[in-house]
């Protein structure tokens, strides 16, 4: 299996209609104030951003859902892919925050939760990326001119947490990506300047979530166990323990 680095981690909670998000949610979960806080009236969405575990944390509160996203900081001219760190350990800060929140009084009643991860692994070029992908998934093109290949599949399973009717979706999206850093300068006639060598990488987007047709709310005391179960679902894919072909 490739050595995956984590590009981003997301914890999403679908809320009960009667839940009112406390204005102090960031402080309650992170321990200090966010750097920025904005409210977009047109879509009733609040976005707060601040530093978190050598990266950047975003809290987005919108109708029906609350999302926490942990991403790395990106610096100009940086060599290599920006990642939080190696999978699975680099997911720990957000997982710890999620578990703490789930155990607190500010956690909403929820019918559905999700963990989203984007992981990547450096490769030489597009062709070698496709060759590596062919060891993991089906249908990778062999034509050397092929590009724009993408593979998406959901392999659901019953939740390991014993709750009647609870399932875990393991949605994965595979591809080869090119990362290019460049500066766009000027306003009247903008020009671009590439500031670092191109990087190719295998890219895997994971969306591990509980089933949308689950009836009622998830038992509050079991939510941390469900978070762990979702992360197990991510590991099952990243470590090649399930067949995604």
């Amino acid at each position, binding site marked *: 299996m490739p050595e995956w680095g984590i590009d981003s981690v997301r914890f999403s909670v679908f809320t009960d*209609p009667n839940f009112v998000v406390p204005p102090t949610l960031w402080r309650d979960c992170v321990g200090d104030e966010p750097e920025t806080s904005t409210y977009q009236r047109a879509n009733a969405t609040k976005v707060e951003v601040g530093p978190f575990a050598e990266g950047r944390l975003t809290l987005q509160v919108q109708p029906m859902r609350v999302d926490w996203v942990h991403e790395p900081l990106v610096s100009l001219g940086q060599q290599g892919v920006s990642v939080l760190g190696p999978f699975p350990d680099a997911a720990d800060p957000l997982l710890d925050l999620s578990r703490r929140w789930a155990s607190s009084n500010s956690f909403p009643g929820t019918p559905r939760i999700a963990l989203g991860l984007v992981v990547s692994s450096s490769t030489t070029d597009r062709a070698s990326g496709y060759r590596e992908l062919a060891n993991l998934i089906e249908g990778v093109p062999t034509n050397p001119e092929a*590009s724009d290949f993408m593979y998406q599949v959901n392999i659901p399973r019953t939740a390991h947490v014993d709750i009647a009717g609870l399932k875990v979706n393991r949605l994965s999206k595979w591809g080869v*990506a090119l990362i290019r*850093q460049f500066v766009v300068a000027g306003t009247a006639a903008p020009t671009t300047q590439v500031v670092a060598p191109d990087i190719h990488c295998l890219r895997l987007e994971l969306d591990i979530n509980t089933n949308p047709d689950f*009836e009622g709310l998830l038992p509050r005391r079991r939510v941390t166990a469900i978070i762990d179960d979702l992360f197990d679902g991510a590991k099952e894919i990243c470590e090649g323990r399930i067949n995604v072909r």
Partner: protein
Amino acid sequence: MNEESNSTAIGHSFSDKEPLELTGLRRSAAVLALHILAATTRGTQRCFYREDTAGTQIIEAHSESSTQPRKASPELQARLDAMLEAARRDIIEDGMRNAITDQLPELFLRDFNAIIPGLKALIDNERTPPIVAAELLKELGQIRDATSHNSRRWLLASALNMASPFVRDGAALGLARLADPAAIDYLRSAIAKEPNAEIRADLQLVVDELAEEVR
């Protein structure tokens, strides 16, 4: 992700970076952009497109197992605004067609996950005439679509807490049309705090109807 870089669809940019001043470059403004592009020589052509690729949208809109946050496309948002504007001019009466009954089902079914925040904002907005908000809610209950069912129930149940009695009544009617007994608990908790006797009676009627369906 800009994987379909040979697509001509409007595409999502990974760049969400703040504008960054680069003093050393003696230029008026500069933006640092980190883009993840498809492994193709034509990837740079699409660096500045802002929205999701059509391909990505199709996949995600129809993927029930995806929980990726979604944003309404500018076109969808514009159509939602146009519908609201037309509804403001319409005479809204029970049983009569209007801009909402004509347009909302199609807009909602195109990408309900993306449109929910905008709809919720419209319903919550004090500048939206209550009769229009109520009509939106009634129509949401009318749409027959299993995929968006839970989302519509969520919108309707949350509207039971609104300040306007018109809107609360619209939500109750929407829930009656949705005919989902899973809404009974929300209706019962709304009855317990409903100050308006007429609406309380309406809510109770809906509870009785839904309870009848369970039997």
